């Protein structure tokens, strides 16, 4: 059975323009799924509908057997702890230290008061340091996040998502503001997360080549509709033209 199943998802911000039109797809456990498509195709909206940062208009999102769109506040909170998210601009609290930002990922498991007072157990702190070590930034644990480079900040973002013990990680253009080397480091980490830890990754990407070399499966979005859904080697010239509206040679693919 698949971990995530999206059925007939529709979303429009204004009444006349639809951002997402009848989206249907599913993702299995440990699958690495890339979503490609031009800017404005609805990639970010799609990801944000899954964890309900954006409210979808119509459809079903089945995650671990329950429909996320029907959940009330408390249930939604519990469901969100199982879904990590990584952002293009890292979305950390820049003035706080790396370790504090990582521990923010545990708030979903705590009462409001425990969270506001910042009470974390020893295991949680040990786990945070373990993850920082795994991503190679344990040396920066007590530095403020605004002193770190982009690639390092994104790794803090990954740690914050991993400490949630998620089943699914949503990545909204995780490498769009990074240099080529940092991009590779981040993509390698995401790949190993899905392979070793069995966490499903849904990654919005702008780079077709990156999507092809890392993904188990690729979804191509154009103008709010899925125009391609298949394995990376099935994505040929014809489909790329359908996704972007032009030939590969007219695109910068690396």
């Amino acid at each position: 059975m698949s971990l995530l199943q999206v059925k007939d998802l529709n979303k429009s911000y204004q009444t006349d323009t639809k951002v997402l039109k009848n989206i249907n797809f599913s993702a299995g456990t440990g699958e690495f799924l890339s979503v490609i498509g031009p800017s404005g195709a609805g990639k970010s909206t799609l990801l944000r509908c899954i964890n309900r940062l954006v409210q979808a208009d119509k459809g079903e999102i089945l995650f671990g057997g329950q429909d996320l769109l029907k959940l009330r506040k408390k249930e939604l909170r519990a469901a969100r702890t199982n879904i990590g998210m990584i952002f293009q601009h890292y979305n950390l609290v820049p003035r706080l230290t790396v370790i504090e930002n990582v521990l923010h990922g545990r708030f979903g498991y705590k009462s409001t008061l425990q969270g506001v007072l910042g009470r974390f157990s020893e295991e949680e702190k040990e786990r945070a340091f373990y993850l920082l070590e795994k991503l190679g930034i344990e040396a920066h644990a007590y530095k403020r996040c605004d002193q770190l480079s982009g690639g390092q900040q994104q790794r803090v973002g990954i740690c914050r998502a991993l400490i949630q013990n998620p089943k699914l990680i949503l990545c909204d253009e995780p490498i769009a503001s990074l240099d080529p080397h940092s991009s590779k480091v981040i993509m390698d980490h995401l790949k190993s997360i899905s392979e070793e830890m069995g966490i499903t990754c849904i990654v919005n990407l702008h780079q077709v080549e990156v999507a092809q070399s890392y993904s188990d499966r690729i979804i191509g979005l154009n103008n709010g509709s899925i125009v391609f859904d298949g394995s990376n080697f099935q994505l040929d010239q014809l489909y790329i033209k359908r996704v972007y509206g032009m030939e590969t040679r007219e695109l910068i693919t690396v």
Partner: protein
Amino acid sequence: MNEKAFKRRKLHSILFFLLIIGVAFISAYMTDFNLVEGMATIPTALIWMAENLIITTDTLAKLPKILEKLNETIFMSIAATTIAAAISLFLGIAGSTTTAVNGFFSTLARLIASFARNIPVVAWALILLLSFGQNSITGFLALFVGTVGFLTRAFIESIDEAGSSAYEALTATGATYFQVVGKAIIPQCLPQMISWILFMIETNIRSATLVGILTGTGIGYAFDLYYKMLDYQAVALITLLIVAAVIIIELASNHIRRVIL
């Protein structure tokens, strides 16, 4: 083509400049203001100041009394500002689009802020004078209301500017509203908020002098009293002390800002 555009822009600047001069002349004519006559009175004014505003040893005898009044004013400003800051924090969080609980509270907070801010502190003092009479509570409230208005506005801007990305990320992890506000929004905005509070303390010490004249409290009252007694030496001393106090507070708050930012 390009040259033409440049010429036109030049013409526009000249016309604009002439317009400003024209407006200045018309306003002066309508208010019977004569620049030459105005300038001519400056030397006489300076001579009067030099003759009357001299601090003598006699005046210095009044120093302890004046300092006591000055203290009263400074502490009233600090109290009004800090209490207003606490209220503004809640209004700011309610009013910011990032952290708004719902549209109603957001609009209400903004409405309170703009109402409090757009009426000058002096007007507040005069309005409150009618209901509270001539005492320090009136002065305190006048400063308090104006400060709430200004600080709420400033806090809303700070939160809007700094908070939205972390707010989104923490909401996605399943954090509650108060966890996000307490652990992401406030830590991120705190230095800027403290900076605004310090600015407001400075401003309020200046305003407190004026408000004091109206409400009969603090250094403003002392200024008014000696002025009406024609004791200009004491007036000079008070003025000098106010300037010194404001400068000292400003230096102190600049130092604090450097440390926290």
